[in-house]
Every structure is written in C-alpha cells, then in structure tokens.
C-alpha cells in the first residue's frame, strides 16, 4: 500500500541514524561523497523544518576538518584532496548554519577560479575532469561567497551555450546528449548569472514536461526509467522558467510518496528500492516545490532554504507552486 503522507518524523530519524549503521559496508565506498551527504541530509532536514536534528557544532567541525590547506578548498572527507563539489557543499552547509565567517573566502575563490579551463568550463579538481556540473558548482559557490565579480562571465556562459542541444536541453560537455540533471546545472547557472536569454525556454520546457511518465514519475532522458531525483532537477528548472504547473503535481507527489520506506524512513529512487540520503534530499526538495503542506520553502536555484538565500539578497525570479494548507 503506497503512503499518502510524507512521513516526516521517520525521515528525520533516518537521517539522524545514518551515523549509526556501523555494519554497513557501503560506507567505505562513499567516503568521497561524505561532505555532499551531510549537505543532502541537512537540506532535507531544513525542508522538513528540522534543521536542528543534527548538532550544529558537530556539523561545522566536520566541515572545517575537511579543509585542504594545500589547495585552499574543501575535500569530501578529512584526508581527501579538495574538490569543487565538496567545496560547494561545505559553503552551503556553513551558510545554512550562518558560519561562513569561518572560511578564508579569498583562498577559496582563488581555488575555484584556478579550476576554470581556457574553454570556460570548470574542472572538478586538479585531476582535470570537466563537466557543466562543475561550472554550476563554481558559479553557485562564488555567488554564495559574494565573489561572482571575480568570474569571467562571458567565457563561462560561452561554454554552457555550446552544450545546448537541438532539443533545447543541455549535456555535460560540448556535443553530449541532453540530460535533465545537466539541464538543471546549466539553467540554474545561467539564472545566477542573469543570462536566461541563452535558454530556448519554449523548447526546453516542453522537453522537460515530456519527462513525466504515466505513473507520475519523471525520467532524465527519453525512454529511460523514472527516478525521484529527477523531480528536483526538472521542477527546479521549471521553477526558474516559471512553468512548474506543466507537471501533473498530484501524480508526481503520489509517485514521490510511494518511494518512501514506511518502516525505517528515507526515500528511494523508485518504489521498493533501497533508500539513501541523496534521494531523501531531492524527494523532499521536489515536494517542497510542489507546494506540499507543512514543508519549508526551498530555493530551486541554489537548492538551499529560501530564507537563507533571501537574507543574502540572492533570490532570483523563480516560482514554485503555492504551499497548500492541507
């Protein structure tokens, strides 16, 4: 029997318990995502109105322990090299907890800018893998740090523009297929840079609406399976282009709710699959944008609590569905 309610207390205790399952062998595989996992957990908790369920001081101490002093950025884990994705997560966590003053903003800015390639795209780390995901990480992080003025905007936009495809979507590199997650990073990056005119909005919104399948879930590319995380990639992109109503909200809400684990909490990619903190974050984020009652507003551009972004004066002209009362 599919759940008809969001099981908030259960999800909160699921996120809190993530640190306890010491017999879970999967943990050692995900050390490279630890910083991101904390960001996902914290963001999900904020969306559900339980920001304080994780101890603020412990979280901040963990983030600071991941500082890579040689590179000037944050790694995913205390002894890992700095990476642009974990650096963004660290900044998001600290800002959510109003602790950005603990960061050497000049050094982080230099680290981020050092990863930009002549083509305008960003690499994830000194190893050099490039991807529009990393462009988003750089743009979002610089914006949150108040250092966007240090970025060569033309060069950055030019690369993203070249990733635009005939179907209106965006790929991870020039020439690559459109993919909903890459659409989010490119559209949100352009929104932060106030360059949404680079998007063929009519074609793209139509392509995004086409991602909804008869069971209500959304997929990331034509003829692929639905997955809870696409709720966020697609709803956030549509929010930025003010077209969330193009998705059948009731059906998508029911789909996300059906992916909950009603016994131990957490949300999975699809009904019956194992839950994880990533899909718990993006499932609740999707529900927030759909106006699900009782949730806190989430900023779709930065994927952070809307109140935090508003307080920084960074809110863009997005529109989610009105929050329902019941």
């Amino acid at each position: 029997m599919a759940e008809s309610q969001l099981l908030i207390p259960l999800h909160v205790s699921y996120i809190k318990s993530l640190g306890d399952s010491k017999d879970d062998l999967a943990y050692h595989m995900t050390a490279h995502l630890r910083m991101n996992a904390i960001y996902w957990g914290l963001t999900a908790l904020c969306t559900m109105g339980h920001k304080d369920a994780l101890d603020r001081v412990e979280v901040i101490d963990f983030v600071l322990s991941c500082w890579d002093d040689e590179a000037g950025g944050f790694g995913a884990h205390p002894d890992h090299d700095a990476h642009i994705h974990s650096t963004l997560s660290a900044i998001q966590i600290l800002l959510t907890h109003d602790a950005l003053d603990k960061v050497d903003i000049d050094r982080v800015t230099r680290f981020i800018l050092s990863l930009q390639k002549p083509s305008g795209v960003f690499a994830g780390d000194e190893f050099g893998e490039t991807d529009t995901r990393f462009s988003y990480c750089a743009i979002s992080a610089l914006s949150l740090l108040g250092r966007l003025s240090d970025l060569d905007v033309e060069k950055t936009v030019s690369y993203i523009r070249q990733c635009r495809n005939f179907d209106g979507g965006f790929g991870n590199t020039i020439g690559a297929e459109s993919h909903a997650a890459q659409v989010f990073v490119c559209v949100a990056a352009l929104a932060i840079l106030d360059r949404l005119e680079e998007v063929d909005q009519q074609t793209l919104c139509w392509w995004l609406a086409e991602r909804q399948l008869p069971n209500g879930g959304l997929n990331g590319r034509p003829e692929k399976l639905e997955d809870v995380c696409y709720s966020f990639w697609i709803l956030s992109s549509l929010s930025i282009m003010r077209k969330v109503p193009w998705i059948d909200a009731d059906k998508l809400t029911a789909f996300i709710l059906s992916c909950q684990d009603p016994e131990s909490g957490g949300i999975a990619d699809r009904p019956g699959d194992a839950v994880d903190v990533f899909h718990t974050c993006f499932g609740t984020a999707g529900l927030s944008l759909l106006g699900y009652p009782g949730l806190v507003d989430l900023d779709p551009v930065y994927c952070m609590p809307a109140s935090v972004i508003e307080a920084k004066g960074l809110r863009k002209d997005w529109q989610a569905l009105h929050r329902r009362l019941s």
Partner: protein
Amino acid sequence: MTSEPDAPLFADRPEWEDVVPLPQYENVDPLAPIFYTDEYKDATNYFRGIVKTGEMSPRVLELTENIIRQNPAHYSAWQYRYKTLMALKAPLDVELRLMDELAVRYLKTYQVWHHRRLLVTETREPGPELEFITKSLQEDMKNYHTWSYRQWLLAYFNDDALWSDELNFADQMLESDIRNNSAWHHRFFVVFQSGVRTGDENREEVVRRELAFVKNYISLAPNNASAWNYLRGILDHSATPYSQLLLFVTPYSVPRSPDADLVDVIDLENPPPSMGAQLPCVAAIEFLADIHENEGGDDIMKATELWRSLADEHDTIRKKSREYRIRDALQKVQV
C-alpha cells in the same frame, strides 16, 4: 567490491615493509563514521603512506589498482595512479588494456572514463578507442559516460579517418534499438553539430537525406519521441518551415482510416504509418498544432482544438501545458 580473495594484506607482505602505513584521520563525522573492511583499510593505509613520501614506483601501480578494484570511486587513487604512470613512463597501451576490463566492470564510474581520456590524450591513438566504445556500448546501450566519451574523442582528434564510419555506426545503433535517444542524439551530433563530414558538403542534400531517414523511422514506430525530436531538430537547424511536413504528418494525427489499406500508390516522400501502429500519435497532433499556430489567423483555432484534444483525451498528464499553450495563443490573437 573485493580484490582477489587470496591476496595477502599489504601489512603482511615483506616487499611493503619499508612503507609506514598511515591510518585514516579520525574525526567527528555526524552523518557517517567510516567503517572499512580489513582489506580496504589495509590498502588505503599504505596508500596514504606512499602519498606522504611521494613514492612513484611500479608497486604503487599494484597498490592503486587494488584500491580501485575495491572502490572505483576513490578519486585520489586514480589521480595518484596517473601521476605515477607518467613519472615511470609506463607503457600506456598496457594500461589501456587493463582499463578495457575496468571500464566494462565499472561502467557508471566517472573516474574510469576520465582516466581513459587522459591516457588517450597522451598516446594520441584514438582509432582503437572507437572499437572499444562500440564493444562497451553492447553492455549498456544508453550509458551516458560512454557516449559522451565517444563524442569527445571524435571532436578532440577530429580527423577524417576517425569520422569516416560514424554515420554507419549511428545507423547500426538505431537498428538495434529504434528508441535509443543517445543514438538519435549522436546522429544529430555527427551530421549537424560538429562540422561538415567529407561527402556531406551539399547541405541541402544532407537535409533531404535526413528528412527521408527520420520519416522512415517515424513510419516504422510513430510513437517514438526521439524521432520526432530529431525531425524538429533538422527543421529548426535548416530553418525549414514545419508546414512543409503537413502532408507527411496529417495521417499520423488522426485515427486510422478504415480504407487506409486500399491506397495502392505509396508516396515515397511521405511514408504512411506502419500497420498496427497506435494512432493518433500525440507527437503528430502536437506537430500539426505547431504548424497551425505558425500560420496564425483562423488557423489558431485549429491549433487550440488540437491542444484541447491532447489535454482532454490523448495526453491528459500534460493537460496544464496544453491549456497554457491555448491561453497563450488566444492572447496573441486578441492583441
């Protein structure tokens, strides 16, 4: 997830005696304390040890391979492995053959593909890579990393020999799965998005060829979103008015006519929907509505009727988007 079952721990191997293993830096971790298998803990302790001393030797290759096989997402191990290969001037063809195995095993790991990219940038021999990619796509015909690696390879080395068989390759991929969006995208990339291929200099002829190609595929399976997207892509790219497709699209936008089989003169330019295809086809109705909207004037009402039929009957899940189109079009008329 595990290395060879009988391999001894590095701590038990005499040839590693001189390395000081460095245990994981322990710290508060509110969401997830690390719990490791003994094999993983052992290997990564020795890894931290050699990183600390900066050692780059053949045994580092053994150690990093061991870690990667346990956890292909360990990006520091990949990074250090690459640096070591360069420092040792190790034979990269040997490394690529090892990667052939690992890529298929860890198809969804970013690092596997990026490492390959770095190696091929050094060897500058992209030829054999195409064959490898073709083989690896057999494991997962829609793998995003694999396709994106192929597109990078073609664009980066960009020589005629490399491109020469690419259209043929895209054809074969579509033949094995007519709905594979990655293959449709690739075809567009090859034909329109990455320069002009030898033999394709006459662009009008290319557009005609591609239109015939996609119409044929639509007729075989009309309810195939990727093919309709491709059709729109060609028209937009060549600035061809959608209305030129009116004759082709119309039979797809209506229920099958009872006497359709009686037509004995087949219009080769406009292949009809195949027998048994489910009609009307949503994408065709949508396409026809776009033609009418572009015509403007009285045709706007025809467009709104088509959108209405999609909203209420043929594609109800996207009702809101069609109602938006109706309001939007009517507003434009009134202005």
